[in-house]
């Protein structure tokens, strides 16, 4: 029987999980290596709902390994690149997706981080600047002069090669 590890979420709730599953997280693995499995592992930066989602990913990838996503993306449709389950897994609200990204970054789970980042990249790929701003509710803090400068720099770089 595998060892169980107790994770404490941001809300203080305890989630018990198989040690083998959570060892995908470099952070948790190092904490277990340091303190052992007997001590509870506090994860103050991860909410319970996100932690459960992360653990769901960890369980699934253990049985269905995910190949590394090719960079740069060849397609704006993630389903063309990865298995359907993974595409569905990250097909969530933006807020949730960003929480997953932050949790994956905090827990240092590379496959999950790559998957979620690839999902965000597909949301940007092929869209105009205005669409990107609109999609992510980003305020344009560039002055017209600065925008012109960026355009000019790109133009200059193109001319330099030609």
């Amino acid at each position, binding site marked *: 029987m595998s060892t169980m590890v107790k994770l404490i979420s941001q809300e203080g709730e305890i989630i018990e999980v198989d040690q083998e599953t959570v060892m995908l997280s470099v952070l948790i693995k190092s904490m277990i290596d340091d303190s052992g499995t007997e001590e509870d592992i506090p994860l103050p930066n991860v909410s319970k709902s996100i932690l459960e989602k992360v653990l769901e990913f960890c369980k699934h990838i253990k049985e269905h390994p995910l190949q590394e996503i090719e960079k740069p993306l060849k397609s704006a449709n993630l389903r063309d690149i990865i298995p359907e389950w993974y595409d569905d897994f990250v097909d969530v609200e933006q807020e949730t997706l960003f929480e997953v990204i932050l949790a994956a970054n905090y827990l240092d789970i590379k496959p999950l981080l790559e998957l979620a980042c690839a999902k965000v990249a597909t949301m940007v790929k092929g869209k105009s600047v205005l669409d990107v701003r609109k999609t992510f*509710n980003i305020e344009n803090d560039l002055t017209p002069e600065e925008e012109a400068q960026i355009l000019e720099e790109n133009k200059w770089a193109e001319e*330099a090669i030609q």
Partner: protein
Amino acid sequence: MGGCCTSQSIKIKAKVSVVHTTIANPKKYPGQRGIKGRSRLKNRKQIKLYPVLINIFDYFDLEDLEKVARVCKLFCSVATMDALYQKFEQMIDDTSDCRSSRMSFQMGNLVDEERIDFVNGKIRIERNSGMKIIEELDSIHPAISTKPSTKPRVSVIRPPIFNDIPEEESEWNDQQSRMTDMNAPKPNRSIQQILNDYINGSELQVFKRQDLPKIIQENNDFNRTKPTRIDSLKSKKFYKKLSDRLNQTHVFSEAMGDAYTDSQHINDGIMTIESQELPFFPYSIHNFRHNQNQRENSISLFRKMQTNGSEITDNNQVNTDREGSILSIRNPSRNSSINKLKQLPNVGRKRNSHFVRLDLIKNLPGRFGSKQSIHSIQKAPSLVSIREHPGEDNNIETLQPSNHLNVKNIIGQKRNSFYPMDKNQLKGLDLGSIKE
């Protein structure tokens, strides 16, 4: 960019919050926190978003990066850096190991004025915005820092006139090694072949800036999808360096029109010029002209030779391959050659190793009317042209007084001793009766 940057692989020591970003979030999603919670989340996001954005932007190609750079300042900052990473990775693929060299790119960043240095496999980012903030990344992107160079190095091919360039900088040597399309003579050619090429004009482009070799091999296999500023920086830097290198080569005798009327004048005019004096020397390689139209008049040869104060030692024979004209450079002791010179201890040959230009003019019809043979040049500790050695100590302040003339005196002596011929005078010279 191949690979990703996790929070462990990149340690950002500075406060990332220096990046000023506003992520407007007017919409409220189900389960979203209130204003207070949102503000807290926003602050947290600002701190953590930077490394995450790098991961997201990893999936963009250069075209996408240029596009998202126009979204906001944060995106501009990250996209610019990511583009730099991508190009740096390409450069590593294309060149030999760049991690041993130092490359700096000044970024006209909109967030702050940034300076990014790639030094020995580490990235140093310096921002100046009122207070100085330095970020040091312990390692380059994992894909960059661990990816070995896959392309075999191209063997160094240099024209023989530059054979004594010291091995001073690996970056320069790497650039040199990629000059595959250089119209340089092949190694192991005899001096006779080299001279023939000079006479025929096929080697003259070595001196022309516009014909300098391309930096990158034409058949390199990475996809150059979008040009970037780094390409231009790389190109400019290389050409500037090569130009500087060429400018360090000084020719004492300015043009082929110069001719020397007798051995005494040559002996009077031949002096040793220390390399420290060369920055003030008025002649540069750009002033050199090889007049290939005057086939029958003169032969100019650059050759690395050794002077020990009394004679030039070199055992290479040069045949001009012209009717009745033979130019021979013989070494009485026959114990030195270019290759042997390189084996000599630096101390021994540092001062005496120079390029020597030999102008061979026969039966000058000038006012002296004397015959001039190659022996008069051989016997002299001649330096008709001088090659500066960058490896030498060029600190003028530490110069000890020496017997060498300074440049001004030399120039004065040159004016007195050398009789410059014009092109018309050179016509009709007979090279056939030159003494060996």
